[in-house]
């Protein structure tokens, strides 16, 4: 495929998107836009559709109804976007080779790859583990390596699916610091979490999902200070949304 690389995949616009899985509606009439800027955090209980929304915005799932456009185009190879899955799968090779593979897949010139691998390992604090088989790293280290592998694609937008879900506070802080650094470099971060504290720490914008629908969205300070909907009030108060 020789589609020319695009300057950016942003804005990503979802219009009245419906996604079904096995006849069950997972996302229902979602209309939302992800634009350049501070991180957008998707919050909501388990099963609310956060992961499906990330995958759809990444272009991994086609909607049954509605449109998704990347910088105005409906068909767009994932050249300038990357995703880190909740349970990333490490390729059966070293940490450095995992990043090298992503660089090769993204078309990075062979001569540049060793330098980029070293930079990315350093960014996520895994310099000392370059030669270690990736599958032998701890959970937190694998999450960081997965982040580095996603960044190897030089994305304009990075989707993160609960990157700290199973990590302890120290490992969580490391990931959050990297996310801030990535955002400061101008990469748009769209991240799913069900951790309200994490959402408060990182969000520029908040999207609250429940049962496959957007309940409320907007700038984070306003959302947390004065939620407009009953569901948002309950969620912020720590009550169970079922």
């Amino acid at each position: 495929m020789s589609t020319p690389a695009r300057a950016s995949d942003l804005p990503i616009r979802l219009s009245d998107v419906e996604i079904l899985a096995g006849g069950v509606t997972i996302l229902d009439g979602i209309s939302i836009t992800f634009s350049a800027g501070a991180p957008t955090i998707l919050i909501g209980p388990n099963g609310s559709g956060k992961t499906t929304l990330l995958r759809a915005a990444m272009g991994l799932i086609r909607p049954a109804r509605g449109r998704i456009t990347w910088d105005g185009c409906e068909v767009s190879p994932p050249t300038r976007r990357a995703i880190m899955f909740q349970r990333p799968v490490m390729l059966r090779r070293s940490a450095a080779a995992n990043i090298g593979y992503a660089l090769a897949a993204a078309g990075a010139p062979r001569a540049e790859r060793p330098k980029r691998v070293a930079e990315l390992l350093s960014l996520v604090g895994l310099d000392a583990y370059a030669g270690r088989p990736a599958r032998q790293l701890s959970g937190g280290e694998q999450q960081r390596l997965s982040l580095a592998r996603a960044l190897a694609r030089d994305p304009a937008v990075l989707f993160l699916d609960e990157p700290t879900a199973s990590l302890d506070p120290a490992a969580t802080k490391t990931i959050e610091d990297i996310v801030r650094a990535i955002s400061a470099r101008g990469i748009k971060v769209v991240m799913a979490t069900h951790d309200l504290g994490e959402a408060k720490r990182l969000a520029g914008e908040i999207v609250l999902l429940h049962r496959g629908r957007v309940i409320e969205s907007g700038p984070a300070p306003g959302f947390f200070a004065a939620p407009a909907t009953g569901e948002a009030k309950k969620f912020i108060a720590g009550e169970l949304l079922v």
Partner: protein
Amino acid sequence: MPENNSALHLVLTGDPALFAIVRLSLIVSLSATLIAALIGVPLGALIALTRFRGREPVIVMLNALMGLPPVVAGLSVYLMLSRSGPLGSWGLLFTPPAMVIAQTVLVTPIIAALARQTIEDLWVEYREELAAMGVGPFRRVRTLIWDARFSLLTALLAGFGRAAAEVGAIIIVGGNILGFTRTMTTTIALETSKGNLPLAIGLGIVLMLIVILISALAWGARRASERFSG
């Protein structure tokens, strides 16, 4: 037992007749395994990574053929290569190439079925990550075969073990001709029936050593997999 001592003597002194038989056996079985690998691994990958009508019956048949009786494989190749058969004009019956063909028929389903399972399992695991990295079909196949290389090596060793140990197929298409198509297994069968136990036992020892070596190599491949790939 005097037979055991004579057998050991034949092995330890490098008896030329015994080692000519060992050499032919290894050439036939290694050639068959190599050809079966060249057919079986791509075939396994193709079935693992494509969806087509009738795919499941094909998988069931392939798995069933792993248990193909050697005499049936030998008989099929015999019918193909016999003078009145479709490939009779090639004049291959009762030659080493006929034995290679028969063992290839026997081993290819084993390698293809194990490769299919290995590559499909890895594909299920890798699918989303490779899609997210925008990996195209060619690089995808290369990646899956490379990352599954230690498991595929075990499949090849299983195929070679099957080829080296079988007697039914090669005795039908090879004819067990002294100095030409006589291998370890066919010699053991023949010499035992003649009561020439030292040679049969000597070849049995060599065959067992080869089987143990294959097992050690398979184990080594597994350890290398854990060490280098995690």
